[in-house]
Every structure is written in structure tokens, then in C-alpha cells.
């Protein structure tokens, strides 16, 4: 642990990424994510890494995918409008299996919306923003310290699964300064870049899946002469139009992640032992929800809280079980209601699921959530 200090969420996220081995940042400034780029501009050269400001957000993700193929762990950061622009190449990274981390510090949308106001309205976009079928990992921290941790996890997952990973920060956490103590270097586990396990002579194929269903395409410049494409391809990496290959490829892309879904589903439970109502929350909203739940407990409500760090893949099992444990689930989110769709589906009518949307560009107050808890408690008591 390092000394305690005041640190901003965005800064912690950037520092976590560097700690996890990120040595390349490409991007385009946009509020409220710009501090990440600015941190990288100052600090990456100090560790021998590259920062480059590109001409737009599309180039911002293109350049990091190139750098990643050439062997550098790479990250870009943006907010809603830029995240929308990056969608095509996020899909590219998914199908071409290129490790890369995309930070989206969410702000109020759609479009330019309210650039300096907080929101959590890109939840579904993180899952479904690009065309075609693909899996997605998205993590959302709720504290400044966790912004660091999530960055480390995101980089590790992107390397382990060779897939784009989204960090869904929100303006609340991204711009929050709070006391943190960061882990020291030796406390941080780093997933190294995967390397070919056979030689070319042994018939190496760049996209042959290993036991964990993830392939080991060689870094460019290491003598393997691989081919990388956004077309559907077979184990060689070259395009294939065969229905069988197509099915296998798309399925494997999902399975490599879904098979360890529970392992990568991170969440916390608070006050859940005897809870009849559960509040499911994430990001900045979870902080307020905690305060509300604590207050409601003090007021005698049997309410608990499940705080999600892993947003995607959706915590299917956690939610299915949760619905069996409680009578009511409240889902406060700084949007018009997004994550609640999935909770409702998984709950399968086993518990009453209530959406508590907030889309006035302000953060929740503890009282708003507490009142909703009380209302729900009254309802399910009937």
C-alpha cells in the first residue's frame, strides 16, 4: 500500500492502467474523460510508453488496436459521443480478438446532451452498441480506489480473453476526488500478453483456440507473419465463408467469456442476510444507494444491497438467485431505466422488480432512494 492521498477517479483509472502494463494511449479529448488523456500525456513517456492525440475518436481506437497488435497493452478513453463513434472498431476488436480497453466516462446524453452532468445511460450501449453478435465485458467502479482496481482488471481481462473491455465510469466517480491508498507494484497481478505456444514449423495457426477457447495470435514483428482481419475467419486467421466456421467462430467468441462468467462477475453484498428488499446499484449511484440502505436499515427496513462491479456479462445467476431470496428489487440508475431490463428478465417474476430512473442530470440523493425503498417495502408487504 502506498501512502494515503487525494486522487480523482479518472486519474486512478489511468494510474491503474499503467500499473497493469498499459504502455500506449491514443484518444481524443472529451469531457468528462479528458483527465485520463492528460494523465497519460504526462506519464506514459516517463515509463517508455506512447501517448498520441488522434484526429478523432475513431482514429483513437484504431491506433490503439494497431499498437496492441504490435505488442503494447493499450487503452483509450472517451465519453458518450466518442463512445458512439468508436463502436465500429469495438466490433473489430471483438472479432479480430485484439486486447484493448475502452474507458467511457459517462455523461448526460443523447448527443451533446449535458457535457458536464453525470449519467449512467450508456449501459446498454456498452453491450449492444456495435453491429453483429459479440460478447462484451464491462466493469463499473464505485470508488476512486476501485477505479484503479477496475483498470487493472480490465487490462488483465482484455489480455486474457483477447477482447475489448469497457470501463464504464460515470462523471460522479470519474471526477470525484477521495482518499485512496493504492497497492504497491508487487501487490498487483498482471496478466501478461499471450504468446504463441508452437512455432511456425510446428504448424502454428494464429487463431487456434487454446483450452480456454482463446487463441494466441503472435505480436506483429515476431516472425509469425499472421493475418488479422475483421472478416469472419477460421483458425488460420484467413477469411472463411463456411457456415460451420462462421458458427464456430461466433460461438467461440461468446463462449470464451461466458464459460467463466461467474468468475468474472464481481459484486458486493451489504446487509443482505435477512433482507426482503434488495437494492441493485452500480457506479456512483451505488454510493448513494449504500447511504440510503444504511439509513433505511436504521429506520427498521429489512433492506440490503447488491453492488455490481461487473455490468457485462450480465450477472444472470446472481440476479436469478437474488430474485428467489427477496420479495422486491429496486434498481436505481442515472438513466431512463436500462440495467433494470436485464434484472427484470432474470428475476422471472420471482420478485417484484422496480426501476428507479433518474435522468435530470443530477445525482440521486440518499433520500430519494430511501423513499423508493420504503414504497417498495410497503408494496411487497401487501
Amino acid at each position: 500500500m502506498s501512502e494515503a492521498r487525494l486522487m480523482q477517479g479518472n486519474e486512478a483509472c489511468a494510474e491503474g492502467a499503467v500499473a497493469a502494463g498499459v504502455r500506449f494511449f491514443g484518444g481524443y479529448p472529451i469531457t468528462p474523460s479528458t483527465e485520463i488523456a492528460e494523465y497519460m500525456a504526462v506519464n506514459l513517456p516517463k515509463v517508455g510508453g506512447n501517448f498520441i492525440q488522434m484526429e478523432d475518436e475513431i482514429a483513437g481506437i484504431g491506433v490503439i488496436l494497431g499498437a496492441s497488435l504490435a505488442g503494447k497493452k493499450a487503452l483509450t478513453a472517451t465519453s458518450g459521443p466518442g463512445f458512439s463513434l468508436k463502436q465500429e472498431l469495438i466490433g473489430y476488436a471483438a472479432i479480430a480478438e485484439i486486447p484493448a480497453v475502452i474507458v467511457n466516462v459517462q455523461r448526460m446524453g443523447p448527443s451533446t446532451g449535458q457535457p458536464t452532468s453525470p449519467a449512467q445511460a450508456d449501459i446498454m450501449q456498452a453491450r449492444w452498441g456495435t453491429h453483429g453478435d459479440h460478447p462484451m465485458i464491462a466493469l463499473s467502479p464505485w470508488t476512486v480506489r476501485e477505479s484503479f482496481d477496475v483498470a487493472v482488471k480490465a487490462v488483465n481481462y482484455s489480455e486474457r480473453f483477447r477482447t475489448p473491455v469497457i470501463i464504464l465510469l460515470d462523471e460522479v466517480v470519474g471526477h470525484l476526488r477521495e482518499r485512496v491508498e493504492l497497492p504497491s507494484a508487487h501487490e498487483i497481478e498482471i496478466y501478461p500478453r499471450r504468446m504463441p505456444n508452437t512455432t511456425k514449423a510446428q504448424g502454428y495457426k494464429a487463431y487456434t483456440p487454446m483450452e480456454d477457447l482463446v487463441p494466441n495470435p503472435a505480436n506483429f514483428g515476431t516472425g509469425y507473419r499472421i493475418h488479422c482481419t475483421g472478416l469472419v475467419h477460421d483458425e488460420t486467421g484467413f477469411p472463411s465463408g463456411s457456415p460451420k466456421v462462421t458458427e464456430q467462430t461466433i460461438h467461440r467468441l461468446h463462449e470464451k467469456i461466458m464459460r467463466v462468467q461467474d468468475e468474472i462477475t464481481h459484486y458486493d453484498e451489504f446487509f443482505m442476510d435477512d433482507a426482503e428488499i434488495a437494492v441493485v446499484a452500480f457506479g456512483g449511484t451505488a454510493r448513494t444507494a449504500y447511504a440510503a440502505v444504511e439509513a433505511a436499515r436504521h429506520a427498521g427496513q429489512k433492506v440490503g444491497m447488491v453492488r455490481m462491479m461487473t455490468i457485462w456479462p450480465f450477472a444472470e445467476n446472481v440476479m436469478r438467485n437474488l430474485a428467489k431470496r427477496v420479495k422486491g428489487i429496486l434498481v436505481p440508475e442515472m438513466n431512463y431505466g436500462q440495467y433494470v431490463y436485464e434484472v427484470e428478465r432474470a428475476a422471472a417474476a420471482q420478485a417484484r422488480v422496480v426501476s428507479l430512473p433518474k435522468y435530470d442530470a443530477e445525482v440521486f440523493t440518499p433520500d430519494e432512494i430511501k423513499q423508493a425503498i420504503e414504497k417498495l417495502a410497503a408494496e411487497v408487504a401487501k
Partner: protein
Amino acid sequence: MKEIRLSGSGGQGLITAGIILAEAAIMEGKQAVQSQSYGPEARGGSSKAEVLIDDHFIYHPKVVNPQIFLAMTQQAMDKYSHDLTPDSIVIVDEDLVQNPHGSEHIVKVPITNLSVEHLGRDLFANIIALGLLVKVTGAVSFETIQKAVAKRVPPATVPKNMEALRIGYESIQ
């Protein structure tokens, strides 16, 4: 928990003041969070910084019960005071806030003028305000705030900033 809101116009340095206050609290081993909100203007307009200080981890990161409310412009006074309680202490720059309101406990100090008068420029108003805040809240010790300020500001300006802190601290009894 201490809940402090600093408000004024963009460029007055209140966010920096908030950060320093939070850093001082951490130096004393406390928990602290600092957040801000501002309008579309790069300069001018209204902005606020909030600082919460506690012994325990602070979940909800925004002020719910403003114990101390500092306003450095009338516009900020009007915009960010909706949730003041009778117990809130309102500190204003008396030259820039003609109509302080929201609570009975109003502390009027010619903050900006003190800066101009004693330090030649209005630049140090935020640090004067910080000295004042420390005095009123006792959130951190005067020594700690001195250390915290010294750590943040450009080395060449440390003496003037120390002076500003002191002016603020001593501007009321």
C-alpha cells in the same frame, strides 16, 4: 461528518481551495471526498466545490446538509443555497454578495478586497477564504492547512499564500 460547500464563479479558485481542504483532512488521517459542479462557461458563470470530511468511508459523495456554505458571488449564493438549513453557516464575500440568505448565521468578510489590499491582487481570495473556513469549521488544524497549501501551490508563491491563509484565519474572531 463535516459537509462544506464552496461556491463562486469559475476562475476564483474555489475548486482548488476545496481540494486543499480535502488534502489537509487526509493529512490528519481522516476520510475526505471532494466534488464539483460547474456550468458551461470556461471562466465566469457559477461553480461549486463540495468537501465532505469524516472518520469513516464516505459513501454518498455530495453535501446533503450544508453545514458551511461559502459564497463568493451573489449568483452562486442564489444558485447553490436552496438546501441551507437554519443551522447552516453562510460565509460570504461581503462586497460581492449583497444579499446573503438561507440562514441566520451569516459571516461577512470582504474576502476579495482583503486579497487586493494586503496581497496586491485578487488572486489569493480563495486561500483567504480557506483560512476563514478552517477557522469557522475547525475541520483541520491551522498547521495542517498550512502544510496542505504549501504542497499544492507553486513554490515561489508559498509565502504569499501563507500570508493569505493567516489573513483569512484572523479575519474573524
